[in-house]
C-alpha cells in the first residue's frame, strides 16, 4: 500500500459539497490530528454562516483563518468568503484578494496548487462534488507533486462536473463515495 504519512489534508468542493463535508466532519474521530484545509465555493449571496454551519456537527474546531496563521493539528481551516487561501512552505496560510479564478474566490485550484507545492508527498487532496471546473487543475498538481489524490465518485455526486473535469486531467489514487472517504480518513494513523 502507498505511504499514508500525511501532514496535511486539503479538500475542494462546490455545489452539493456542504452536506458531504458536514457529514465527514461529523464522522471523524474526535482525536483526528491532521489539519484539514477546506476550499469551498459559496453561494453568491450567502457569504457568512458557512463556518457556523460546519461547526454544528463537527467534532473538530472549524475556523476561518487570518492571513499568516500557522496550520495546527486538530483543526479545520475554511477559506474565508471572498479571499483566496494559499498554503505556504512554512505551514502558514496566506490570503489574497486578487482576481477570481474560474469565476471563484476562494479558488480551489489556488489552494490545492499551493499546498501541492508546499507539502509534496505529505499531502492528501480530496475533490468533491461541484458544478465548476475549478479544482481539477489543482488536483492534478497534487498528483504531479506526488501527493495522494481522492476524487469523489461521480456516481455519488450531486453535480459531477468538478470530479469529471479532474478525471480528464489525471488518474487519482482513489475514486470513492463520501462514506468510503470518511472510513479512509478515520483509518489514517495518528
Amino acid at each position, binding site marked *: 500500500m502507498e505511504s499514508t504519512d500525511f501532514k496535511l489534508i486539503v479538500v475542494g468542493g462546490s455545489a452539493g459539497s456542504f452536506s458531504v463535508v458536514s457529514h465527514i466532519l461529523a464522522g471523524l474521530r474526535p482525536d483526528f490530528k491532521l489539519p484539514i484545509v477546506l476550499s469551498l465555493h459559496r453561494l453568491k*449571496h450567502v457569504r457568512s454562516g458557512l463556518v457556523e454551519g460546519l461547526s454544528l456537527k463537527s467534532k473538530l474546531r472549524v475556523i476561518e483563518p*487570518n492571513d499568516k496563521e500557522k496550520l495546527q493539528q486538530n483543526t479545520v481551516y475554511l477559506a*474565508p468568503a471572498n479571499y483566496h487561501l494559499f498554503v505556504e512552505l512554512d505551514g502558514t496560510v496566506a490570503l489574497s484578494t486578487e482576481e477570481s479564478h474560474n469565476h471563484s474566490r476562494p479558488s480551489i485550484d489556488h489552494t490545492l496548487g499551493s499546498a501541492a507545492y508546499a507539502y509534496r508527498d505529505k499531502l492528501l487532496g480530496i475533490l468533491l462534488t461541484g458544478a465548476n471546473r475549478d479544482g481539477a487543475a489543482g488536483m492534478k498538481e497534487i498528483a504531479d507533486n506526488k501527493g495522494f489524490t481522492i476524487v469523489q465518485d461521480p456516481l455519488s455526486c450531486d453535480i459531477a462536473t468538478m470530479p469529471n473535469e479532474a478525471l480528464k486531467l489525471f488518474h487519482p489514487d482513489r475514486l470513492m463515495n463520501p462514506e468510503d472517504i470518511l472510513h479512509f480518513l478515520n483509518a489514517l494513523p495518528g
Partner: protein
Amino acid sequence: MQNSEKDYDYKEYLLILKECSPYDFSEYSDNSIDRRIKKIMRDQGLNMEELVLKTRTEPDFVEQVVEAITVNTTELFRDPQVWNHLLKKVLPTLKHQKKINIWHAGCSTGQEVYSLLILLDHLQLLDRAEVYATDISKKALEQAKKGHYFYNFNADKYRENFSASFEGESEPDFSKYFSAEPDKDHLKIRPDFSEKVHFIKHDLVKGPLPFYNKFDLIFCRNVLIYFQGSLQSKIVERFHENLFPGGTMVLGSHESLGGFFKTKFSKNGPVYHRTNSFHFKY
C-alpha cells in the same frame, strides 16, 4: 520547467526590477509574488530572459508589471459589518473635531474611499474631512479618481453591501451617491465626491508621506497580506506613528496584528485604536 532558458528565479528578477525602477518588491510574500510574475509571463507569452529585457528597456512595461503584481480587487462597503461599526461607533466620536484627517493606504480603485465619504456625508461630517488616498498603481489611481465602475458586474453587490452597512440606521437613497446607467454599463460616483479626495501615487514600502502625516483614521485593507511578516510590522509601526492617540486603524477582515503590536493597539470590534503608548515605555 518555468526557468528553462536562463537560470533566473523570481528573486533575481525582483533585484533587477529594483535596480532599474523605483519599485522594491523584495519583501513581498514569496508565494504571491512568484505567482504574479509567472502570470505576467504567461499572459504576455514571455520567457524570463525576455521579461528581464523588457523590464530593463521599457519604462511603460515596468508600470504594467507593477499593476500586475499589485492587482487587488475591492468593492463598495466590502464587509458591511465593518462599515456599520464605523458608522455607529467610530465616526460619531469625531463629531466634535474641527478637522478629520483620513488616509486610505493602498486604495486600489477607490470603492472603499467612497464608502467612507458616504458615511461621513450621512453623518454630516464630510465638510470637515481631509481625505488622502494613495496607491502604488497609476492605473488603479486613475480609475479611483474617476469613480466609474461597471454596472452589470457590481451594482447588485454594491446595493446589497450599502443596505447592510446602514443596518439599524435610516438608509439613504443609493442614487444620492451613484448615478446608474445600466444600458451603458456605468455606475458613477458623484463628481463632488471624487473631487473631494487627494489621490496621490505613493509606494507604501517606500519612505515618508508626501503630505501631512497625522491621521484620525487610517484604512489599509487587504494590502498587508501581500507582504512578508517583517515588512508588515514595519508598515504597522509607521501607521502607529501616523495616528493621533486614540486614532483608528482599519485592516482587512482576515488580517491580524502580531504579538508586539497587540500592546500598541486595542481591538474594538473589527477595528484597532492606537493606545496611549507612553504607558508602555520604559
